[in-house]
Every structure is written in C-alpha cells, then in structure tokens.
C-alpha cells in the first residue's frame, strides 16, 4: 500500500528535448491511476522515471514520502507489466513467475508458495509447467502479470498492456484488469493512449500532451469539465466539436457569436466573463450528444447541412457542415434519416464549454 507523489518532475533528453515538463501529481494508496495521452506526450517517460528506468532531470518522486530519485528500480519495490510481455522465452510459466524472487535469493519453499498464490489468483495454475512459447497472447499476458504481482510490489506499473489486442479482447481485458486490481488493492499506474481504457478503468486520470500535464481528475471530471481544449477533444467518442467564436454582451446577456451560430451563454459562464480581462475570441466546445436536431428553426437554433450519416446500430452519428464551414458531429437516434446536403436545424444544449484561444484553458478554470 503506497502513495506515489511526483513534484515538479522534468525529463530532458540531450539537455534539449523536453519530454516531460514540470509534472506534479499524487496517486493515492490503492488507486488505479491512468496516464493518458497521444504518442509522444511524455506518459511513458514519466512511467519509466517512476520505475527508475530513466533518470529524473529535475524534481522529486516520492513513495510514501520517501525520495526515490536515486534508487535503482530493483530497490523501489515496484513491478512492471509490458505491452510485449517480455517473458523469459526459455523458462516455463512457473520459472517466469518465480524469477523475481529467485534472483533476490528468496528460499525455495517461499517461492513455491508465492508462485502458486499468484497463479491461483490469475487462474493459470494449470499452465505452470508449460513452456512460455506455446501460450496464447492472453495467457502470456497473465504470466507477465503473475510475474509482476508475485513480489507483492508497492506500486504496479502497466505500460499499454492491452493496446495490441483486437477490440473484443481489449474489452474483455479491461474488465479483467479492473477486477484484478480491486482484489489486489495495489496502487497501480496505467499508461495508455486509449481514452476508453482510461475512462472505464481508472479511479483518476492524468491527461498529458507534449510533455505537459493537462488535467488530473476522475473520469467524470475530465469528461464533464475538461480543463483545456486538448482534454475536451481527446476524451470522449465521438470527439467534442470545436468552433471559433466571439463572446459578446448584448442587453446585459452574453452570447457566443460566429458566422455559423448565435447562442446564449449559461449563467455560470456569464459570471466568469464579468471580470474577464482578455480579448473576446474563444473556442466553443460542445459534445455530439449535447446537440439536438429540431424540426423547426427557432431564434435559438443553428442551421447546418447534412454531410454524411454513419449508422451504428444503437445510434447514428450525423456529420453536418455549419454555415461557416465547420464540420460538426451530432449524435442522433438509430432511425434518423436525412439526405446528403439536406438542411437541418440544430439546438446546442449545455454543457457548452469555452476555451481561451491562446492558452486553450477552459474559462471556468480561470
């Protein structure tokens, strides 16, 4: 049971390339914590610094308030599960799982007890005597996890362990890993580029982009109140729609204006704008599920033309072109029908987000 803390951690390669820039966060004891971001965002570098596989350029990493910066990986009591399993090919399952204990000089009886416990925990007892080479991907994955948990590490690190699996297997493994972690109660740091994985598995998520931390929050928080435009666009499928607009005051009320729409702004946003000192150019963000197609045009509605329809069984994704040229996605029912280029009327519903153009920050966070 361990709390992990990163304080102003930086990683530079060759003194020039900033891979991780001033990242700070805390993972609570027993938490399933995801590091989420696109390739090159710094999540793997961060994980490797936590593991001790990379040197920290600046900042501190603490396990339960103990500074681990200078500790070798083997002295940190962490264990890692890799995307490519990295099993020892000439050892059998028993030997693979027992290896971390064997090299630490743990007595044979103790190794036997722990290996059998790990195998039983993962339901792979009947694979123990098998050679690793003949196993399926899923079985190899379980062996990799077995090898990681056998030492009962303080922190479990997982580096994109299921991204190479095909959709159905991934869906299955997402469930299995969550159930596993709940039973283990070990603090787990999970790196992924797949927002579905992070959203469905993690207690909290740290979203990263270009080396910087964008937001740390629960899945609900990063979904409902994205701190930056990047988070808004990265979390959620189909992705959030964005458009440039001006926020102007008219008759005491604020409105969002562009060539494509004119909509009222919520009380909450209006309150934020009262003391706002910056210019009035913003990026509007709205999720496809927050837009409704309405039968008649009203003073509140926005006109658009149908670009393409993508039926998906339980719902249909409608792509439309706004008058200003922006392509927006709208979630509609499975029986929705329309012709390409047909005109439709849209209603934008809350939550509607506004992000500063330069900083990308959500107005409500300022």
């Amino acid at each position, binding site marked *: 049971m361990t709390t992990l803390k990163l304080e102003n951690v930086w990683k530079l390669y060759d003194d020039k390339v900033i891979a991780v820039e001033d990242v700070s966060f805390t993972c609570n004891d027993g938490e399933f914590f995801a590091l989420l971001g*696109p*390739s090159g965002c710094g999540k793997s570098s961060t994980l490797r610094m936590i593991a001790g596989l990379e040197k920290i350029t600046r900042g501190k990493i603490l396990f339960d308030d103990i500074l681990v910066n200078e500790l070798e990986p083997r002295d940190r009591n962490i264990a890692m599960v890799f995307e490519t399993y990295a099993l020892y090919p000439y050892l059998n399952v028993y030997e693979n799982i027992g290896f971390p204990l064997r090299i630490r000089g743990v007595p044979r009886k103790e190794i036997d007890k722990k290996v059998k416990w790990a195998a039983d925990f993962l339901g792979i007892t009947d694979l123990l005597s098998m050679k690793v080479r003949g196993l399926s991907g899923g079985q190899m994955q379980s062996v990799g996890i077995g090898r990681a948990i056998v030492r009962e590490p303080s922190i479990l690190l997982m580096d994109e362990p299921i991204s190479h699996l*095909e*959709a*159905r297997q991934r*869906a299955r493994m*997402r*469930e299995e890993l*969550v*159930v596993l972690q*709940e039973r283990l109660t070990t603090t787990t740091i999970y790196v992924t*580029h*797949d*927002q*579905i994985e992070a*959203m*469905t*598995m993690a207690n909290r998520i740290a979203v990263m982009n270009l080396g910087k931390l964008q937001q740390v929050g629960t*899945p*609900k928080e990063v*979904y409902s109140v994205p701190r930056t435009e990047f988070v808004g666009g*990265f979390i*959620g*499928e*189909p*992705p959030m729609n964005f458009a440039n607009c001006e926020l102007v005051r008219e008759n005491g009320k604020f409105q969002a204006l562009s060539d494509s729409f004119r909509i009222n702004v919520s009380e909450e946003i209006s309150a934020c704008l009262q003391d706002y000192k910056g210019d009035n150019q913003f990026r509007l963000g709205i*999720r496809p*599920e927050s837009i409704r197609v309405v039968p008649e045009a009203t003073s509140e509605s926005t006109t658009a033309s149908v*670009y*393409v329809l*993508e*039926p*998906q*069984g*339980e719902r249909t*994704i409608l*792509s439309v072109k706004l008058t200003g040229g922006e392509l927006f996605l709208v979630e509609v029912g499975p029986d929705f029908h329309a012709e*390409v280029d047909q005109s439709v009327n849209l209603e934008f519903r809350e939550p509607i987000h506004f992000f500063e153009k330069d900083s990308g920050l959500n107005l409500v966070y300022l």
Partner: protein
Amino acid sequence: MAKIEVKNIQKEYKGGQVNALKDVSFECADGKFFCLLGPAGAGKTTTIKLIGGVEAVDKGEIFFDGKAVTDILPMERDIAIAFETYALYPQRTVRENLLFPLQAPFRKENWPVEKAEKRAVEIAELLGIGELLDRLPQQLSGGQRQRVALGRALVRNPKAYLLDEPIAHLDAKLRHRMRGELKRIQIELGITTLYTTPDQLEALSLADEMAVINQGIIEQIGTPESIYKFPKNVFIAGFIGDPPMNILKANIIENGLKLEGMGILSLPEKQNNALSTNLSESSVLVGIRPKDINLVSPDHKDLQAKAQVRNTQVLGETMVITMITDLIEFHVKMSSEVVPSHGEQVGITFDAVDCHFFDPKTQIRVEGL
C-alpha cells in the same frame, strides 16, 4: 461504375491445407458501398485479391457488369486496390506513389502531368498527409503509410475501389474522421466500393450493404440494419453490436421459458407454440442485447433474474455493467445517471419482444416469431 458479382469462389493455400474461401457468393451493386465484415483469418484479404486479380480463383467466377473477369489481368480490370499491408513503392516519395496510378507505364488513360499533380495534392490533403509529399515511405509512421496506400487507390476514378482494412492502423480519432470522409467521397463519386473490415461498427456506419464472412463462408448478406436487427445465427448475433448480444440458455415451459441460472421469461401463447414446433428439442438459445435489459430492485415482482454487479464501465453518458449470477455472466448497457456499486445485488428484466431465438443444435435463428 461496375456491379461486382462473385459466384461460388473457392481458394485453397498450401495444397489444400488452408481452406481460405470455401464457397463464397455475393453481389456488390453498381455505385454502392459494400462491406465484407469478418474476424481475422475469415478470408477478407483473399476475397479482395481474387476480385482484384492479384491471385487466381481455384473454382468459381467473378463478373464485372455481367462480364466474366476471372481470367483477365488486374490492370485490365480497371480497379484500384488499397492493400492492408500498404505495398508502397519504397524508393518513391509519397507524391510519386500517389502519382503512379495516373502515370503508370502501359496504362491507356494516363493523365496529363498538371492534372495528375493537382489530384495527388488534393487527395493527400484530404487524408491529412499533404505535408509529407516529399518523404519516402521509410520516413513515415504506420498511420501515415496507410494513408498513402489509401490515397494511391483513391487518385483514380476506376470502375471499383477494393479497400482492404484501409484505416485499421490509424489511431481512433483519425480512424473516425477518415470513416466519415470515405463515406462522403464514395457518395460524391458514386464509385462501387468493396471494403473489408473486422470492425463491426465500421461496417455498420459505412455500408449500403454488407456480408458477414467467417472461416471462408458467407454467414449473412443484407443491409447493416437488417443484419443488426435480425442476425441469422448465434455467431452473427454475438459479432454485431458492442457490447455483444447476450446469449442465454433456456428451456421451454408452459407459458414461456425457464432461463438457465435465471428466472422465467413469459411468452405469449403464439410465440411459445411457434418455438415448440420449430425446435426439435425443448431447449433454446435466447439472445438479448445489453441495451434491452433493465435494472430494477431485487425485490421487483416479475424479474428475469437477480444478479450481482461485477464491474461498471462508464463512458460519458452511457455505461456497460457486467453482471454475474451463480452460473453466468452477461452485460447491460444503459444511461450512466446512476452508477451501481461493484458487488451490489440487483434485479434485471427484459421483454420477449426484444429477444432473438436460436436453435441450440444448429445455432440458426428461429424465424417467424
């Protein structure tokens, strides 16, 4: 423009050891977007290769607009192929790869240089690789290479596009964007498109018509809507839809079904009789989609079952709950307004009207219910 017909084609590899296509027939109507959907190893790539003429059929025939092309060379078939493995010309730049089909030696209708260049740039920008035109394939990421392969197929206006999992290796966001663009291009150009994919959501969103293929056999052909609503067998029922349809075992009793490991599902008399007549034994497989199951209190009167919440996956406004009983596990999909706790005991209900019935022996859908 071409109608593509494939009749009883068979293909074996390794002297009969691998039966890639057992007896495949389907028709891709002129100007339509046709998806061939199936898991890995089903025979999708083999089908593309045979229709393209890259390989020869062992048995069966292929027709374009009613004319047999089975013995005609690929370059005479006037089709454009995007291979799953890209097959880019390694010593040529992205621009040259895209231009090649428009300026290939021996091709009768080559385009004038200016027109070809303009087209190459147009397609590159559409696919988001406009900045990469002077790079070599080895300098590109997998996703970029895949888009070059797709672009190379799209530059021409052939009789048909044969696209083999053309966006499979792009990251999720890009894949979604490309799906919409591809569909739009196809609608605008009206070019017959045969598109293979293992992703059922992709097939549902793109296809005018589709075929589900599994282990070299066509399982069902129809519109995405008809296959989604009336899957012909248990394999298709479990393959289309995410999360997959729950398949429950049941026995026919007096006024309905006794679900194995669960409770009773009432059936109107007509349905009950129809089931009894259609099945040789008294057991049946009941398919129910996760979205058609409701969560109720465990004390509810007419439950189909009591179960425990094993796991919840919340994705924005919807969530998928994994439920377990003593014997089985199944999934429920609903709005994420109230998220149950792990381990919570709940009741579930569903309606016979939303159920699909399959013969346990043949795995085939029981019709007429």
